[in-house]
């Protein structure tokens, strides 16, 4: 069965009117940054608990279907499980020998390794989840506006922020088109005898390799056409361009920011205090 569009959800936006959808994109981006930092620093069990509660709370706020969001985690879960096995087997630490369960040559399984690797994997899963939640509830153009507003100070030191943001917008716009193209290429392969939907994970991954060249070629062609389309509509870089959208903070956004500060404080406290 080949249905990539179902598995790959990165960059997809799910229209809705929830609180999360309506927040100012700048607040969402700052919140996202804060969450990334907090999750990356989480070490104690209670800190992970706070993260999980936060994840569930935001999910409830977003009013997205639980089944859909869990489904979107599937590719990450499969990948992380795969990585987890290696992490455990090659785990290195000084205190490890005290909790060794099994050992052969340079491969080993220890309780400490199991726990530490689980934390790393869970952290990655949380990050993947939060980024997904952001794109599910934020239209691409809001993300672009938000990042442009936040990065504007860099313009003073000569960073072409407006152009970079447009590059981001177009790149994300191409994601669904690319997935559709990849799906077409895979179908064409399957129609000519390649067994894409059977075999081990690794052998399947290897079969996608040869598709990259036609995929990149079609991407370049699209980019070229889009350049012409943009020039035809008088795009000359950020110079002399009006921005139609104006961002404004509302009461809702202030509450969200306050909430963020409280959660961050709670997280830091949980991390400091909690047992390992």
């Amino acid at each position, binding site marked *: 069965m080949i249905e990539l569009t179902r598995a790959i959800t990165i960059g997809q936006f799910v229209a809705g009117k929830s609180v999360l959808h309506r927040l100012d994109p700048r607040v969402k981006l700052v919140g996202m940054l804060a969450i990334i930092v907090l999750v990356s620093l989480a070490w104690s069990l209670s800190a992970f608990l706070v993260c999980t509660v936060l994840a569930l709370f935001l999910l409830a706020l977003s009013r997205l279907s639980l089944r859909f969001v869990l489904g979107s985690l599937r590719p990450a879960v499969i990948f992380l499980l795969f990585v987890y096995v290696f992490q455990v087997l090659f785990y290195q630490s000084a205190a490890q020998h005290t909790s060794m369960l099994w050992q052969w040559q340079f491969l080993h399984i220890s309780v400490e390794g199991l726990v530490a690797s689980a934390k790393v994997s869970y952290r990655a899963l949380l990050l993947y989840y939060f980024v997904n939640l952001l794109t599910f509830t934020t*239209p691409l153009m809001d993300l672009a506006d938000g990042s442009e507003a936040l990065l504007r100070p860099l313009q003073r030191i000569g960073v072409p922020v407006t152009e970079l943001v447009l590059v981001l917008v177009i790149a994300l*716009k191409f994601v669904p088109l690319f997935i559709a193209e990849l799906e077409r290429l895979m179908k064409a392969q399957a*129609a*000519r005898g390649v067994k894409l939907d059977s075999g081990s994970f690794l052998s399947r991954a290897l079969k996608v390799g040869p598709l990259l060249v*036609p995929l990149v070629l*079609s991407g370049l062609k699209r980019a070229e056409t889009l350049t*012409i389309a943009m*020039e035809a509509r008088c795009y*000359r870089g950020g110079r002399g361009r009006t921005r*139609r959208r104006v961002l404004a903070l509302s009461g809702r956004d202030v509450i969200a920011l306050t909430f963020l500060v409280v959660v961050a404080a709670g997280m830091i406290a949980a991390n400091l205090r909690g047992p390992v």
Partner: protein
Amino acid sequence: MLQLDRVSYGYSGLEHDSPAAVREITLAIEPGTLVALLGQNGSGKSTLAKLAAGVLQPQAGHVVADGFDTCDREGVWAVRERVGLVFQHPDDQLVTNTLLDEIAFGPENLGLPREEIEHRVGESIRLLGLERYLDVPLNELSVGQRQRVAVAGVLAMRPRYIVLDEPTTMLPHHLAEDLLATLRELARADGIGVLYITHRVEEVTGFDRIIVIERGTIALDGSPEDVFSAREQLAALGLEPPVAMHVATDLRERGGLPLPDVLTPVDLAQALRSGGYANSTGATAPRPNRAGIAFESSPSLSAEGEDVPVLELRDARHVYMRGTPFEQVGLNGLSLSVPRGAFVACVGPTRSGKSTVADCLNGIIRPGRGMVYFNGQDIAAPGFDLDVLRDAVGVVYQNPESQILKDIVGKDIAFAPLRKKLSLAESRRIVQESLEAVGLPYEEFRNRYTYALSGGEKRRVAIAGVLAMQPSVLVLDEPVAGLDPRGRAEFLSLIRWLHRERGLTIVYLSASLEDVLELASQVYILDAGSVAFSGSPRAVLEHLDRLDALHVGLPEVSRVALELHHVLPNMRVDCLTALELETAVFAALGRTELTAYAPSTVLEEEQTDD
């Protein structure tokens, strides 16, 4: 005025698929006029469009819009502001992914004040009736809706001229009509000059001027009446006059009906009515076999009765993205059967389930519910080898680019034989056979680079690659979409040859009935994932108004029949050719001239006899 003055543009010519050149073209487009540009693929139409819109600068000559020259460094931006460009495929054109941002993109680039941008965006949205889609992400809109967004984005820049490069290729008939009506309105009310590129002559009958280009130069230029009357010149350029005009001329010259020259079906119906030929008797007559004329029956199914069909779908249901907010029904209880050696067509508008049918037939998708049978075996049964199915059922997809997997033609076609671990000599033989089966000489093509082939050659190589699997069934998904009339005819004759001479069973998926009338033994009309009705091409054509309501693409003969039916309610509408249509009109009028008008004489034959 938009003026092209002895404009030339050429490409380096290393790649065969590079766009065609333009040589010393001079033409002027007045504000408020509708100008059509016709020509074969590779005649230079698209190059001319880009030159006129200022995205290409001519190598010789000048393009001047309202006094601004594209060769001038600032002038080129003034030209781009004044001349809007709409592409064939909206996905090539849309920059952002929401409707408001997309339409505002141009005005934003012009640096207009914010209030003015809002005003113009609102205006364009109203003009194209897009109010309902404000909150829908662009990639969830249909192609037709996206094309309207693209046009709105161009209009928001308030251009004085619009250049449209085959904008209706991806659109069903009723949406194409809507777009044309909008253009007429823009020309009439706002004085916008329109340069409209197409190869569908029926679309441009109401234009002010028609220009036909061939190999980069202007071959014909004049009013639609003048251009379409030059039949022989048109034929030499690979074009035919509109069917309504052809029929009117025949009815007059051969049948003695005093009809004036007409260009459109509506005008033809009007001419019949005002000539006193309208026939309101029997307005409630039953549809089949009216007016007592017999048409040749369609080719019947060659495999009769007992034989187990090669492929069969039974009550297949499939939902894409099940369990996500993007759920979409692909199939909704669809059943069809493909007898061995038959030519089965599935015809329906976009999203009617055609592509899902293709994916089910070679086991790429297993329908969520329902059965797929291959030679009577359930493909979902344990122990069924999907490879057997995929070897036997070759699928050729719409876009050849996504199907060519290697850089050299020979290597690409050898892909399947080498996978099967056949010997080199055996593979080579199959590659040669497959290439020659699609009409490409082996020695000439086997070492060519695939990316440097022309569009038509790519399609042929894509088919050859599938033929190298040595399938017994060929599933073709919209194989002729986007080809010009000449390319289309060549391609259909290749498919006819594969079916009749090579004995391949064909499943042909298409948005238009036109492609399949001549070849299909059974036509399934699809609607929203299930079969609306089915039958022989002629039987299906009896339901013309229903087909039209389902937005199925119809051949122009049927469009004329549909229109004349209002005037002649007892006329047969299931006509396959213009000749049959003329016969049906005569029969409906109860005239006896019919006998003098031998149905077997075809125009071309008579010309060669003279």
